[in-house]
């Protein structure tokens, strides 16, 4: 009996292990090939180990600018989307008002809309208006647009578990509504807001489809890769990818750590704790339930 159980446990763990491997192999490949020393242009057959690519990651013309553009857009769109989204979430969770349900649904639609459609639609608008000229601005607009819903939903899930009596208490102690928000509400939903921001940043810096529609002559990192992929991906790109990867992992570990601390203190039920990049799970559950 117990023997059989141990057998099952073992199988389960092994299976899970394999699943993890499946998730990690491609990344290993990328890291490995960033050290490759390819003959000619093509970097998908292992030749031999070399640090050249690491020594001059930005040797490839244009990749530096592309990356810079991507980072700028990611940063700006993250800030924009996070602010707008948090405000929206506050309104949705905190207030009973006419048309809340429809708004909730409206917020959800972009999530159920394929990226191609989002990009295409936005392009048709820009084309018809002719302005603004496709480029940095239009990409930024697009990114804030598709990040908004994600932010709203992530923050909302956090707000829902929020203990209102804390705000009553603050007011009882003489805090004005604004003070209440600044000193009590905001600090407590911060982990949610941070999760949202991280999610937004990740989505933005990674987006190809929507950007491709609205980029005009501006080239972001993914667009650059797309172009290069038609010819040859130099190892430098794998190097940069690896660097981005390592950087984000570091950030993640930090946030996970600080969120753990936050969760410990937070008045919200601990089961509201979400992985920092946690998906808008509750919202979807709610929508699915509606």
């Amino acid at each position, binding site marked *: 009996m117990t023997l059989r159980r141990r057998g099952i446990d073992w199988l389960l763990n092994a299976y899970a292990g394999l699943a993890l491997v499946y998730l990690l192999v491609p990344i290993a490949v990328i890291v490995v090939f960033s050290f490759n020393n390819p003959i000619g242009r093509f970097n998908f057959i292992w030749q031999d180990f070399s640090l050249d690519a690491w020594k001059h990651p930005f040797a490839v013309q244009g990749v530096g600018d592309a990356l810079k553009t991507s980072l700028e857009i990611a940063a700006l769109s993250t800030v924009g989307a996070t602010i707008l989204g948090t405000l929206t979430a506050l309104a949705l969770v905190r207030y009973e008002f006419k048309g809340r349900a429809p708004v909730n649904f409206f917020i959800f639609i972009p999530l159920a809309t394929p990226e191609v459609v989002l990009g295409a639609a936005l392009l048709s608008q820009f*084309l018809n208006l002719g302005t603004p000229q*496709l480029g940095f601005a239009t990409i930024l607009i697009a990114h804030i647009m598709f990040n908004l819903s994600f932010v709203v939903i992530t923050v909302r899930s956090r707000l829902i578990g929020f203990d209102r009596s804390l705000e009553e208490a603050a007011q009882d102690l003489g805090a004005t509504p604004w003070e209440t928000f600044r000193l009590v509400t905001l600090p407590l939903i911060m982990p949610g807001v941070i999760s949202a921001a991280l999610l937004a940043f990740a989505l933005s810096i990674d987006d190809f489809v929507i950007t491709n529609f609205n980029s005009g*002559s501006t080239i972001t990192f993914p667009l650059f890769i797309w172009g290069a992929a038609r*010819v040859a991906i130099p190892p430098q790109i794998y190097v940069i990818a690896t660097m981005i990867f390592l950087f984000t992992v570091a950030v993640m570990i930090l946030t996970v750590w600080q969120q753990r601390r936050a969760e410990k203190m937070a008045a919200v039920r601990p089961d509201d704790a979400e992985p920092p990049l946690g998906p808008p799970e509750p919202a979807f559950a709610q929508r699915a339930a509606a």
Partner: protein
Amino acid sequence: GTDEPAGSGQKASEQKPIAKGKIADSLYIANWPLYIDEKRQSLQDFQKKYGTKIKYVEEVNDNTEFFGKVRQQYSQGEAGGRDIHVVTDWMAARMIRLGFVQKLDHSAMPNVDQNLIERLKSPPFDPKRDFSVPWQSGLTGIIYRKDKVKREPKSVDDLFDPAYKGKVTMLTEMRDTVGVVAASMGADPEKASVDEFMKAIDKIGQASDSGQIRGFTGNEYTKDITKGDSWAIIGWSGDAVQLQADNPNIQFVLPETGGHLWTDNMQVPVGAPHAFTAEKYMDFVYQPEVQAVIAAYVNYICPVNGVKEVLAKEDPAIANNPLIFPDESFLKDTFIFRGLKPDEEQQLDNAFQKVIGA
């Protein structure tokens, strides 16, 4: 200092050539990826000489894709800041037809008149090269892996050999693929009828459905052939030359029935802020010693006379490569795809797009 942009939509004939002006301090060139030497020597030299900072953007991945991107602006007389774009013959033709590009002033481009090779002086779509100047030309033919195929493919028909099932790719550029296939079916793409092209498309379609053709590609075919995922394909001469350098097993052959000779042309879009400077740059790269650097890297057919001589000293291998400096005899096996009327183009495009599944 910017030049007066010509009004858009004007009939090409009535257009006035670009007025003389002074050299601007910036220039925006839209070109294909990896279509210039890695150091971008010509750009730096140009800057040294004229103090013009050149914004060189590799934003053209595909003629139609690029056209879709810029159409709206161009039709409103906006160039989106571009001073030069590089597109293939038929797209260049469309740009001219739509009045999206400015008439060039040859008096400002002595080197072009002097060094442009004969075969390219008067293409059907722009007989006097009033609206386009070749950047590079190329041949569409068969690229294959010596070590994989059982015998050297001579004609396009060999690509339909069941032995190569799933190891054949063709190009998403309709004129390249349909052209060579139609030629292999006895048509002459210089003047073939739409029906003859449609027949070719049908043949390709069947091969695609049967799985004989692995897929249709843009530049990315170079990957597959190098990896050995494909064995015998329709591809471009320039790539073949470069690939050969890395892997001697890769060979290019011009089909007996004829390969496609195409050209990517520089044009100055209407509304280009620095049209005159653009002309200056075009002229600049038509100096053999400037062109040599580019040719040595991209390995397509070099449209500039005198480069061969320049390279003969430094790099005889390239100088003697018929794929880069073909003699007339070599070029007789080639055809230039005929200009299509809009409705014909629409019909063939749609048919072809269906076949390649997009």
